[in-house]
């Protein structure tokens, strides 16, 4: 009797999690895909007009705001990649120069604890043309100083990138630091004994050894970039015009401001495709790593 019960208990315990997965993830994704083929406006409409099933997508790809959003997500990804580069440089320096390690690590990481809304508001203040950094530089006598990035559609995105780097820099540094610490200490002393130069050591030995860490960082960064919403809202509210819209912003805007569920769903489906494209390499790599580790253990 007890054995039978122990067969059943773990399966019963899994019911909540399985329900959530089936309904809130699997079901919801299917619902969104379905709705994206309908004419739903403010309320969902479940009838698909098969003669013109791709109407929302056709409209979407003719929409200039969507084009901007896609372009922005790319700019954001490339720009934010600097956070990984600087994160590595910082980690390498902290690791090399042990002095002040705890202090610097703590300092570089604190922005991560702060929400994107607060980050956005803080940086919006720094970018304030009269009262922020620009005003300060002009007050020092540098009359042509221009730090009013958020007001110009051409540079607003760079402002957001700067703030995202500020927010994420410490996180990539922490990941890289963990990676560097996992490298066998013998490599450092062997390289020193052999007189390998500083640059060769890093470029030819250390970075290749950390390629998996770099890849993890890159994928996490791009998944984060796809979700970028709060910081845009807090810094520019999508403006000037629609110049800082991202796909995540576009979805919320289509849903909340325009009240168009079908349209928002089609944009969300494209977001899902982008996420999947970024995500699959991670899954495959993890599987491959696990298999290799298993093979090595054997």
């Amino acid at each position, binding site marked *: 009797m007890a054995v039978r019960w122990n067969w059943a208990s773990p399966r019963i315990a899994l019911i909540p999690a399985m329900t959530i997965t089936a309904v809130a993830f699997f079901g*919801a994704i299917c*619902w*969104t895909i379905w709705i994206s083929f309908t004419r739903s406006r403010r309320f969902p409409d479940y009838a698909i007009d098969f003669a013109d099933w791709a109407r929302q997508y056709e409209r979407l790809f003719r929409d200039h705001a969507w084009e901007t959003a896609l372009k922005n997500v790319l700019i954001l990804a490339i720009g934010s990649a600097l956070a990984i580069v600087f994160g590595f440089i910082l980690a390498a320096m902290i690791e090399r120069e042990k002095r002040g390690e705890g202090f610097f690590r703590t300092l570089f*990481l604190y922005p991560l604890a702060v929400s994107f809304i607060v980050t956005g508001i803080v940086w919006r*203040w720094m970018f304030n043309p009269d009262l922020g950094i620009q005003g300060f530089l002009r007050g020092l006598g540098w009359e042509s100083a221009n730090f009013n990035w958020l007001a110009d559609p051409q540079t607003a995105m760079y402002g957001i990138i700067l703030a995202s780097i500020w927010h994420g820099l410490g996180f990539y540094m922490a990941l890289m630091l*963990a990676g560097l610490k996992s490298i066998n200490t013998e490599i450092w002393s062997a390289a020193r004994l052999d007189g390998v130069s500083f640059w060769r050591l890093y470029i030819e030995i250390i970075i290749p050894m950390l390629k998996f860490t770099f890849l993890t960082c890159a994928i*996490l960064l791009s*998944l984060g970039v796809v979700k970028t919403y*709060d910081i845009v809202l807090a810094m520019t509210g999508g403006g000037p015009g629609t110049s800082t819209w991202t796909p995540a912003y576009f979805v919320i805007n289509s849903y909340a401001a325009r009240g168009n569920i079908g349209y928002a769903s089609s944009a969300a489906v494209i977001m899902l495709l982008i*996420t999947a494209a970024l995500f699959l390499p991670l899954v495959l790599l993890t599987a491959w790593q696990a298999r290799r580790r298993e093979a090595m253990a054997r």
Partner: protein
Amino acid sequence: MTMTAQTASLAAATPRTRRRKRIRGSSIAIMVFLTMCAAFVSVPLYVVIVTSFKTMDQIALGEVFALPTEWTFEPWREAWSEVCAGMTCEGVSRGFWVSMKILFPSLLISIGISSVTGYALALWKIRWAGPFLFILFLCAFVPLQIIMIPLVVLISSLGIFGTIWAVAIVHSILAMPLLTLIFRNFYKDVPEELINAAIMDCGSFWRIFFEIILPMSANIMIVVLILMITTVWNDYLIGLIFGGVGTQPMTVILANTVITSFGEVQYNVDMAAALLTAIPPLVVYFALGKFFVQGITAGAIKG
């Protein structure tokens, strides 16, 4: 070969002077660079703190980096209890209490479900545990935007849309896959003999969980708690979409206050409000630094 041996013995013979000399030059450069980066990271916080203590008259002068000539706590008081967000003027304190009320049920539901699920998947022989974990792994990365509208429909049909429970439940749903993976990774290292012995002792699934597994989970609980507290507290979108007018969390109140303010903008009050919203996660960060890093990286990597 001889060269290396020679350098090695040379290095061994004069370890002190050599090492010191080598570290000096590059060391200063590294420290200078690190300090510059530290300035980049800390200047925004400094600017926000000093601004929040300045009077509007001083802010109008435009010296962002200057210390307040006249320290005033008025902006903090106003931000906490008077500032307007949309129609209501009750300060960010209202959001603070709402965020607190959201936090506790979110933590309880999400940690409750995912610890039990992680335990069942890790320690009990369930044939489809592997595929299920894989699906959870996929779910952990789904952006909210993709499932948001159906969740709105679902939550409304449960009749709790616009309440604290709606926000807490959505938080729990979104956190479940990741937390389950974290718990499962932790529990899978529990020795099998221990569980077998416990089963022999007529331990049932739940008794083993409450009497053996939970007491040894302190470490992972802290990690998960930090992860959840910061996620829930810093969330904006879930609170915005699922919270009703009276149940908006602190970030939403803050955003409404700062972004959509009309009339003369009180920058000092805005900055004080931003700081008030940032203080709870910062306290968690500084109090539990070591675990914080662990929590955030566990959340990021294993997800």
